[in-house]
């Protein structure tokens, strides 16, 4: 089982959203991490065949993305998608099941099973327009798994879920990754950190880093420092180093930052985590008090 993305490019007028991305994905969970506008959604839409690439190709076990057989192996949860507000959750799943080619009886069985999985059994006969954002998201996750897909593409799947639902969903994805190719994008770094066997770091339409967590973090290992400093030093450090975290303490300010060598005499090197790398690459500045 192999999903090959070969020099995939998408250009919108003068902007290159995805720039010659090449990937070979096998069974496992792949976490696509990137800032807003980095090209994650565009890449995922092309992988799902809903956006035509400017150049490049996507193939699964030799089957082109435009073929029905490819879509038969695919489950997709878009970042933003609508529902038919007058449909019940159960009807919506039946409709999606018919689009995915399930027989009526199989569709009913699978719909009930997935509603149970995403804890929507009690509201299965309720109209979707009465659902909260989180419930809709869970329904979206359920529909993506109706056809037991070999490729599962989830664009921001945990958005709108409460912490309990998020953790439950993370565990579910981890289990699914054993016999599927799961590609998920999220802004929530801890989600990727916990479940992705491979992390894809995307910036300006290109994959900057690709590999397991240890390998990815290796790029900044020994470069993450923590220190507590007085306010006059804080300004200097903020101006000169990528800051990962700032916390005000009674008489000092705690800083976590990234630097080639200790940025201050009291700074101590600490183990790097994925969030450090994310903020380092995407140059996110954490404002005071955050």
């Amino acid at each position, binding site marked *: 089982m192999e999903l090959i993305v070969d020099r995939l490019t998408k250009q919108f007028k003068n902007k290159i959203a995805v720039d010659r991305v090449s990937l070979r994905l096998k069974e496992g969970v792949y976490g696509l991490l990137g800032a807003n506008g980095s090209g994650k959604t565009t890449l995922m839409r092309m992988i799902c065949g809903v956006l035509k690439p400017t150049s490049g190709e996507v193939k699964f076990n030799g089957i082109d993305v435009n073929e*029905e057989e490819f879509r*038969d192996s695919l489950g997709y949860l878009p970042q933003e*998608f609508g529902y038919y507000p007058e449909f019940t959750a159960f009807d919506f799943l039946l409709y999606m099941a018919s689009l995915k080619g399930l027989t009526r009886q199989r569709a009913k069985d699978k719909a009930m099973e997935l509603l149970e999985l995403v804890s929507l059994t009690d509201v299965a006969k309720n109209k979707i327009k009465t659902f909260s954002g989180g419930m809709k998201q869970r329904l979206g996750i359920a529909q993506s798994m109706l056809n037991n897909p070999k490729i599962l593409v989830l664009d921001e799947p945990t958005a709108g879920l409460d912490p309990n639902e998020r953790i439950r969903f993370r565990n579910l994805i981890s289990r699914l990754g054993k016999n599927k190719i799961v590609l998920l994008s999220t802004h929530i770094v801890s989600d990727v950190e916990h479940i992705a066997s491979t992390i894809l770091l995307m910036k300006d339409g290109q994959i900057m880093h690709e590999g397991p967590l240890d390998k990815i973090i290796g790029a900044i290992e020994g470069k993450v420092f923590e220190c507590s400093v007085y306010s006059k030093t804080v300004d200097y450090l903020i101006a000169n180093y990528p800051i990962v975290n700032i916390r005000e303490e009674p008489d000092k300010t705690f800083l976590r930052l990234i630097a080639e060598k200790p940025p201050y005499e009291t700074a101590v090197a600490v183990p790097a985590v994925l969030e450090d790398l994310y903020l380092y690459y995407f140059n996110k500045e954490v404002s005071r008090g955050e």
Partner: protein
Amino acid sequence: MSSYCELVKFEYRKIFQKHRTAITLLLGIFLTAFSCVVPLLGNHYIEGEVFESHYEGMKKDREYIRGLSGREINSGFLSEATEAYSRIPLTGESYANTDEYQQYVRPYNEIIHTIGKVYNINSLKELFSISRESLDNFYAVRQSIVEKNIESTAMSAKKANSINLSRKVKTPFIYSYTNGYKSFFSQMYITAILICFICSICISPLFAGEYAEGMDDLILSSKYGKNKIIYAKIFTGISFTVLLSIVFTIVSYVTVMMFYGWDGSSSPIQLYLPLSIVPFTMGKVTVLYFVLVLFGNILSSALTMVLSSIFRSPFTVLVIMTAITVFPLFISVSKDVLWIYHLSNFIPVKMFSLDNIISIFSIDFLGLVIQPYELIASFSVVASMALLPFTYINFKNHN
């Protein structure tokens, strides 16, 4: 096949689960039925006094005409009618308000319409001037007027075809009560436009609604999202149009006939359009009219679906379709430049006019001499079939 049927079923559910569909359909049926009976509402006044209600008047006329039904329209019958009119005193006031009209003339009211068209008369004086000899030659006079009309058109060498067709009209005509059919023909024009509007309202979200609801990505990434579902949507749009056309035509037909009476299906269309060249009965014209309205609406729906697959908002589609439906109603195309006139009849709403469907023109098309209704029907089918692949391609390649 079962998955295809399932998809069609869901498309119908999407249409019927919208409140606006139910409201539009109910309102449409009400307007159709109501417009059928509008001519029967109100009263006829003579000198400020209610003489009779329009409904009573219709019933009275029906009885008079039924009393004369079955008679051959010949010089004797026509003379009776003109003599009855001669009893009206020429006082200058509206003759329909006179006692003489009510007493002697009213039974012949309908036949006078035919005489008026054939002898091209506009006043009572002209009516009285028709000679007995001319009345004896009623069918010859009628045929000569028909042929004169054909000759006076800008039609090319194919005039002979129209003349030959007009000579196939079976004479003599047998007088009969046909007001049900006459009212139905008038009503059907309104009904056809209503069907066109309602189809636009209900079909415009078929594709654009998916974009607007944000369902397009889910659909297009599914197994049948780029093939079966598009066929299912197109089938739903066309079948909805067919069903709606059948239901609304039946509502119009039954409502009109219930009030006016069911007789007249085997009478010649010439009792309604005396100078028509087609040798058809009222019943045959009814079927023909329905078929043309159906084809016109299928073409309109095909156009709606193409627009729906292009635009992201069903409302935009609806606005464009309303413009396409409404503007041609106010445009009258001269018959002097025939090809423009025939082209204008390809606009769906123009197909709804009975005059355009069974007009006097024969058309020379690629060496074939065909009638307007044949050309309009063929065009509707071909144009619809040509448009639908664009719908398929647009939705399939939607980004």
